[in-house]
């Protein structure tokens, strides 16, 4: 089952956030750390509030306690025929009788909001829960989702009648995606009745935090388009390329006076051309292993976001192909808007599937022949390995970034456990060696470090197409 980008399928495309529009040309220059100010997602509207929540009232624990003790005392007094014991339960029964029954509304006006509705990983999101109904006491309790941390505000907050029944927390999501950050339980007590409301804020779009990286991985053959990468051909660039004899039309400022005086013939310096590159990022979404917030898919999307940021900043075109249950792709395009398109496509990759991707369905525009393809994969699923074979047949320049950095946990009590882990290590080593034998560089990267270090083995080397 294959699927193209929404525009290619004739579907309406999702409008990119307002702040994602292409900035002024000057904004692209400079080694600004990611995420650059021009690439911040628009805060978006505050996540939508819920309509009145239906409430199921039941007896409050206090009512049960007082009634239990009162009835127990009366029974003991009757059984022991000792009326004086009624003094033990009389205050409890009096308090029970004096307590209000409570207004038990069928639905309570309660809501919880999350603001902003779009943010990067590790940024603060404010959660505000309110109960507008007139009740005696509201106890709010927040239950953060996986990979979400409460950094401000006590987990349980109480509001009593006469005060605004609201609670505020600040949370930090540590996993990208479009998800509910938390669940808030509001325990409303009114008189001797109690109702528990479960509130969830709207989904928040958490963008992956791009790691620091530079656009240093380049294919051997760059495009004929002007860019910022030094090509292996003479042109109108900055870096020195070579020396040749003077030809009519050459600029005098290019004359190499040392060589000219030594050889007696005029020679000029040649400069290397500046060319652009096409980068296609492939994300292997077949496997997703690891703790929440740090799964292999989380790491892969973070790396993809980092590479996309770096190459888009240098004016290159970046596209993406997601190898998952549904084959999705986005043709290479320049500009910061493309970053948000890529991330929004990545939001929908997390679901299991048994389908085999057929890269032949990816159009030539989405996977140009001279593009550099970087595959982020844990190398666990054979379908991803067969995709590597397909890419070799297409003759693209391919780099694999292995995002699996954790070994399977060994069980010390089982004697064969350590042996199994060793076999697994050998298997992984053999796989990497076979890929390296095919001419495909395999890099290891953990999201805890910058992607720059992972690229070190390829520094100063152009990646050639493998066949």
């Amino acid at each position, binding site marked *: 089952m294959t699927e193209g980008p929404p525009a290619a399928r004739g579907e309406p495309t999702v409008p990119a956030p307002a702040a994602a529009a292409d900035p002024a040309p000057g904004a692209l220059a400079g080694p600004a750390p990611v995420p650059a100010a021009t690439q911040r997602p628009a805060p978006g509207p505050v996540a939508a509030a819920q309509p009145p929540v239906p409430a199921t009232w039941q007896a409050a*624990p*206090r009512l*049960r*306690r*007082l009634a*239990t*003790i009162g009835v*127990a*005392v009366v029974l*003991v007094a009757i059984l*022991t025929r*000792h*009326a*004086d*014991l*009624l*003094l*033990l*339960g*009389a*205050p*409890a*029964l*009096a*308090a029970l*009788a*004096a*307590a209000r029954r409570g207004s038990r509304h069928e639905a309570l006006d309660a809501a919880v909001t999350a603001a902003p509705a779009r943010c990067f*990983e*590790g940024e603060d999101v404010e959660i505000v829960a309110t109960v507008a109904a007139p009740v*005696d*006491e509201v*106890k709010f309790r927040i239950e*953060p989702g*996986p*990979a*979400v*941390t*409460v950094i401000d505000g*006590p*987990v*349980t*907050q*109480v*509001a*009593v*009648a*006469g*005060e605004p029944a609201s609670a505020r927390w600040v949370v930090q999501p*540590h*996993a990208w995606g479009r998800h509910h950050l938390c669940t808030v339980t509001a325990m409303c007590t009114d008189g001797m009745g109690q109702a528990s409301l479960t509130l969830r804020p709207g989904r928040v779009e958490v963008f992956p*935090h791009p790691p620091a990286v530079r656009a240093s991985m380049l294919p051997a053959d760059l495009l004929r388009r002007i860019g910022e990468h030094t090509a292996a051909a003479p042109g109108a660039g900055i870096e020195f390329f070579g020396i040749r004899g003077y030809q009519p039309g050459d600029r005098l400022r290019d004359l190499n006076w040392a060589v000219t005086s030594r050889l007696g013939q005029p020679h000029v310096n040649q400069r290397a051309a500046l060319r652009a590159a096409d980068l296609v990022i492939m994300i292997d979404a077949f496997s997703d292993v690891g*703790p*929440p*917030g*740090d799964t292999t898919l*989380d790491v892969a999307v*973070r790396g993809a976001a980092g590479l996309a940021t770096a190459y888009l900043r240098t004016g290159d075109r970046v596209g993406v192909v997601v190898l998952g249950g549904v084959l999705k792709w986005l043709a290479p395009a320049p500009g910061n808007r493309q970053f948000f398109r890529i991330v929004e496509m990545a939001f929908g990759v997390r679901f299991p599937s048994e389908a085999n991707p057929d890269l032949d369905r990816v159009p030539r525009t989405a996977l140009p022949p001279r593009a550099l393809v970087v595959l982020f994969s844990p190398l666990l699923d054979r379908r991803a390995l067969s995709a590597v074979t397909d890419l070799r047949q297409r003759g693209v320049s391919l780099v694999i970034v292995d995002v699996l950095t954790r070994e399977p946990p060994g069980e010390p009590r089982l004697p064969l456990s350590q042996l199994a882990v060793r076999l697994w290590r050998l298997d992984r080593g053999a796989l990497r060696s076979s890929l390296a034998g095919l001419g495909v560089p395999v890099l290891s990267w953990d*999201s*805890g470090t910058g992607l720059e270090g992972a690229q070190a083995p390829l520094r100063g080397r152009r990646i050639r197409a493998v066949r």
Partner: protein
Amino acid sequence: MNAPSRGALSARPPRLADVIIRAVTGCLGAGMVLLPAGQLTGRSWALLPIGLALVAVSLAGPLARWRMVGTLAAGTAVIESALTRPDLAVLAWEGLLILGYLLLVDAPRAMPGTVTAHWLWRQLPLAAWGVFTAAIVLVVLAVRVPVSAWLLVAGAGAAVAAVVIALPRRPGQPREPS
């Protein structure tokens, strides 16, 4: 980018108001268990550590969320009193201690000082009604009244009237505009 552990959430130091509330609740609970304990004999002494342990568990620990613990602690005090049969004054104090303990053991955790004061102020009417009722029952039990058929009829009538007053009433149907 590992997510911080959830254990950090429970590492907040308790608020002063929360500590005070818990301390007062503990004192009330210990008082209701210890007050009749002086006259315990034989195996009934086992109720004393059981009651104190239940009071302690109801204030802190993983079982504090189990609401039955507080009820069991108060029930232990009732059984102690039933076994020892102390004087009326002691029983009245015991009833008030039980009421105070049951009211405070429900106090929500982690309330700021102002919220705690407001919450305590709202419990005051219930406590006042408890004291008032204990005083009335104490007087009724202390005064020896001769057996009278008229008194029995008056009591039964009062009970019926109380039930009639307390029963919920059906709201009247609104009249159609003519």
